[in-house]
């Protein structure tokens, strides 16, 4: 709470009155009632996180607060910027929904050089976003991709299967030691902090992004996630991001996870590798399709 208040004050001082309303409103909206023992399912005394979950926000479009805009890929127009040639045909389907942002304090604390790279990434989104190529989403992006994921929690194991790209994380309950290789999804180790499941993940390479707006990291990334059930069908999710390679300090994103409560809710399948073959290999066809 103290840091939220401080961030709000910083925002008040630093930005105009409109922005102040914006930023002070956000942490309040993000607050949830503390978990009570009575209304959450339990497994061996710990909260039972088993189920199919999904976020409902625009974090995957842009973690930071943003207005709706015509497209992810833009180019200069005679009066105002217009969608890039490659995405014009998508019309409104290709436009970006606005959002109040999920970053505590409102802005990701990049070093100036890293902020510049973020902007370059954004300007070259079509070529650079790993999601376009159906690459693994990394962490925490896997959580807020616009697809559900399923948690499998037992006495001896904790695993998360994501619908997008069939991404998968085994959360080790016993630390296997330093990661032996750098990977897209990192190496995750979980533990209980009271009723909160805390997952530390590192062992990343630098190729995943945090969203479709070019937010990036280096191989020094360390993510600490906290999963706290606030009711039968809600988890308050926090991810603290540390990466001295690009950020001036650790920062945090927060969002609720919603249980998919419909009858027969289940994890779907989105094996998109097949869907991007024309994009990646179409040029190598015997006769490329015009």
């Amino acid at each position: 709470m103290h840091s939220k208040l401080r961030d709000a004050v910083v925002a008040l001082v630093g930005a105009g009155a409109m922005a102040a309303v914006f930023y002070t409103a956000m942490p309040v909206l993000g607050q949830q009632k503390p978990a009570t023992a009575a209304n959450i399912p339990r497994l061996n005394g710990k909260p039972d996180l088993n189920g199919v979950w999904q976020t409902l926000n625009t974090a995957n479009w842009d973690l930071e607060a943003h207005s709706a805009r015509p497209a992810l890929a833009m180019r200069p127009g005679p009066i105002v910027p217009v969608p890039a040639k490659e995405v014009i045909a998508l019309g409104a389907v290709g436009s970006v929904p606005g959002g109040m942002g999920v970053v505590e304090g409102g802005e990701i604390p990049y070093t100036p050089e890293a902020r510049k790279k973020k902007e370059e990434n954004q300007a070259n989104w079509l070529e650079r976003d790993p999601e376009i190529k159906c690459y693994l989403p990394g962490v925490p992006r896997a959580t807020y991709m616009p697809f559900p994921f399923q948690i499998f929690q037992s006495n001896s194991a904790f695993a998360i299967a994501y619908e997008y790209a069939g991404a998968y994380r085994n959360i080790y309950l016993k630390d296997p030691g330093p990661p032996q290789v750098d990977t897209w999804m990192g190496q995750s180790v979980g533990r209980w902090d009271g009723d909160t499941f805390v997952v530390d993940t590192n062992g990343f390479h630098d190729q995943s992004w945090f969203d479709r707006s070019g937010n990036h990291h280096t191989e020094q990334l360390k993510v600490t996630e906290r999963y706290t059930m606030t009711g039968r069908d809600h988890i308050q999710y926090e991810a603290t991001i540390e990466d001295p390679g690009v950020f001036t300090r650790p920062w945090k994103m927060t969002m609720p996870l919603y249980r998919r409560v419909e009858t027969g809710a289940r994890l779907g399948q989105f094996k998109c590798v097949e869907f991007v073959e024309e994009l990646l290999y179409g040029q190598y066809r015997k006769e490329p399709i015009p």
Partner: protein
Amino acid sequence: MTRATTFNTTVVALAAAAVFTSPKLGVDAASEGGQAPSSIAKPWVMPRTADGKPDLQGTWSNATLTPLERGPKESLHLSEEEAERIENRTREVAEFRDAPSDPDRPPPAKGGDERPLPPGDPTFIERISAAAGGAVGGYNNFWLDPGERVLRIDGKPRAGMVIDPPDGRVPALTPEARQRMGQQAAPRKKFGQFDHPELRGLAERCLTSFGSNLGPPMLPNYFYNNNYQIVQTKDHVMIMTEMVHDVRVIRLGDNLQYPPKSVRLWFGDSIGRWEGDTLVVETTNFHPLQEYRGASENLKVTERFTRNGPTSIHYRFTVEDPTTFTAPWTAELLFNTFDEMIYEYACHEGNYALGNILGGERAKEKREAEATRKPQP
């Protein structure tokens, strides 16, 4: 990850051989033998989850030197001597291939055609891996981990996995299936095999692992990386196969339904139930691209998972598709404890091969076209 797997399997096997006085028991406990060492005093007790069901959780491997189908004249069981011969031969070939190359050796007479093997009868894995990699081989031995042990069920070595029909062979295709497969293949015949990405194999496209790893039926690929993780809750069993990080989510329950026929899923849609201490899983709704021996649309696979000792799960499956096979057929094998980490197999993200296979063919065509043009003035 093969590098770690090969190394660690060796370490585990060595350690086990040192601990057990009987080398046979040592190897059994360490690797694909999968039988409980009977000389250990404590009787094995079925591990159970909190809700009393057999606990199938952990990391497993179904690598083995035993093929799905045994030879036409073979019986179900091999003699122990024959099993040991196959295992020794496999070890000998691996050691031979692992030996340092002579830096002063002359260049091969014909590029890549020389891949000498020690004298003796090749195992079936040598034959199929030669077919996969050509004379030069697709991989150094360092990367391969097809299995080191013959499948032994109840301690008796097996020549093949199929137990029904009794001849140990997958039943013939129906005339309908042969006709269907011919019709499906016809439009592709007008293309060269490197003309389009869709003409390449599913594993090469990083759509699934080699062979039928996640299946179902879940079979070893006789190549490398036959590693699985199982996580079990009261209403789901999740099976993840390391290669291509594919996941099967098996729903457990009595009143569950398969989706409409129009919904076709990779690895099918699986519904499971407990019959005593056996997990029985029935799978349908297979993806049309994921054909198993020509079966997909009407394929039904019934699997039975039974923990049968401290280091193994007995796995039996029945394949049914009257539009493809002239009879249902059943096979059995073991999943053995794999006391190693599962790694991320980011196949697609690193798939330079598919682009290079297609692009290489385009470059070759271009070069050939230039060569035919040149003589002309």
